[in-house]
């Protein structure tokens, strides 16, 4: 049976309640540091490793901002030994991406507690700053949250949550040690803190929070949210598949790509330590470019943009958690997230794989069976 503890909300401020949760973790949870978004200036909150409870005053895991996927940062903090346990209070897509990295030994779950907070989505970088304006950062977050988790309309004057968030059917992370509920709940009263693993149980016991049997509003609200997002996702996939049904369509779709590789850098599951596109494997000689140009009378520069995206699909689409940081990072607003989610849905289905669900699911291309996929083998002779 999972333990649920009660996290009281004072002064209608759920952000302060989460700060209190993190303070308890540092003070009596046996946790040396907490990785969580902190408002460090007037810009977007950045993932920050906090060791001193006094520094939690501007910590804000609920801010509708998502400047980067923190999975890679957590991987840095857990690859090798720090001698201390840390906790990561992050979005579900960050936790799911971290699980994928941990499967590839680029991070470790040994000394980390994964705390997932129900995700209500976030604005992209430009729109978060517009949303916040000159207001106080925490007040901005409280304004975004409203009274009931997920109950407030997120659309603003000409913009809405990031495209990735609007089509995300994972507002919770199945692999977290502890979940904090928001969806469908009165955020001004108390929040449920749920232990999902033995590690999470131990943490909750140490935090000395009151045991609680909350009302069932969350499960129903979550199901509604997931259903709505899934519908949005399917519609998005249909639109994208139609636009990219041919290679000409794909080339047109990616026409704005300048090969900056930002989407690769921003991608939390692009796992290669050295990307082949950062090496000289596809550096070509001037006479080769001339030769290719002559074949068709012209050659688009930079070359290999479609090739780059197709290669990325082959390398990471089975691990894509749909966080949308690729689109957030694109300087030319190429709808990269839509394309990758469309492809990922199919490749993940092909291998019956859900990234970030559990450490027990091996990445599809890291294993094989003797008898499988016989239909992809031809017998022509």
């Amino acid at each position: 049976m999972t333990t649920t503890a009660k996290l009281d909300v004072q002064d209608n401020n759920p952000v302060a309640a989460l700060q209190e949760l993190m303070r308890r973790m540092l003070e009596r949870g046996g946790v040396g540091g907490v990785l969580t978004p902190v408002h460090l200036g007037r810009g977007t909150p950045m993932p920050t490793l906090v060791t001193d409870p006094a520094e939690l005053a501007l910590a804000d895991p609920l801010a509708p901002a998502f400047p980067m996927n923190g999975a890679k940062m957590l991987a840095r903090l857990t690859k090798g030994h720090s001698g201390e346990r840390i906790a990561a209070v992050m979005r579900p897509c960050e936790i799911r991406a971290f699980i994928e990295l941990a499967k590839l030994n680029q991070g470790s779950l040994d000394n980390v507690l994964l705390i997932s907070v129900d995700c209500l989505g976030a604005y992209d970088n430009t729109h978060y700053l517009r949303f916040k304006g000159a207001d106080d950062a925490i007040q901005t977050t409280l304004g975004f949250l409203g009274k009931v988790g997920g109950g407030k309309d997120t659309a603003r004057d000409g913009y809405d949550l990031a495209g990735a968030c609007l089509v995300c059917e994972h507002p919770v992370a199945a692999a977290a040690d502890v979940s904090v509920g928001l969806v469908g709940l009165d955020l001004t009263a108390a929040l449920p803190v749920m232990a999902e693993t033995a590690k999470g149980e131990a943490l909750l016991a140490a935090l000395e929070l009151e045991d609680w049997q909350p009302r069932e509003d969350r499960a129903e609200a979550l199901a509604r949210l997931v259903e709505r997002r899934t519908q949005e996702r399917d519609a998005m996939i249909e639109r994208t598949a139609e636009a990219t049904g041919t290679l000409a369509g794909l080339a047109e779709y990616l026409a704005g790509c300048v090969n900056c590789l930002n989407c690769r850098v921003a991608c939390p599951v692009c796992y290669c330590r050295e990307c082949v596109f950062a090496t000289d494997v596809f550096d070509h000689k001037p006479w080769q470019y001339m030769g290719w140009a002559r074949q068709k009378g012209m050659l688009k520069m930079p070359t290999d943009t479609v090739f780059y995206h197709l290669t990325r699909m082959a390398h990471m689409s089975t691990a894509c958690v749909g966080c949308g940081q690729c689109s957030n990072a694109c300087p030319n607003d190429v709808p990269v997230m839509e394309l990758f989610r469309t492809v990922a849905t199919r490749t993940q289905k092909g291998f019956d794989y859900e990234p970030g669900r559990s450490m027990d699911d091996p990445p599809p291309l890291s294993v094989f069976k003797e008898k499988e996929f016989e239909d992809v083998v031809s017998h022509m002779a």
Partner: protein
Amino acid sequence: MDAQATQADAGRRRDAQTAPSVAFEPTIVAFVCNWCTYTAADLAGTSRMIQKPNLRLVRMMCTGMVDPKYVIKALLSGADAVLISGCHPGDCHYINGNYKARRRVKLLKEILPQFGVDTRRVRLTWVGASEGNEFAATVNSLVEEIRELGPIETRGLKAL
């Protein structure tokens, strides 16, 4: 060489490169493993078996090292099909490389059709070292099948 001759020479070269061929001849890039299919190809050759000349063989140490990106690169560069061929299951020189290749081909067959690439353009076969006749027959039937399928879309795409 005088300037006029050089110019004429350059003109001829350009014509040769841009003129569309009347009948479609498929170009097929084949990644074959050193231990089985390459040896079979060698056997087919030394046994003087008749094979279509449309294949460009790339010898790999194992099909397990054919990264999907090389298949994608070949198709985008105008190869009408890619053949990956290695040892029969259980015969891999490196024990299990061909099983890994099978998963990668499975992956490619999920990705490529989304962009209108016919899955018949990516072929995986197992041809053992002693099967020279098998190799020649595979090549011949593949070439005919791709000839029927027609040229790949990338041949006509100017900007990719």
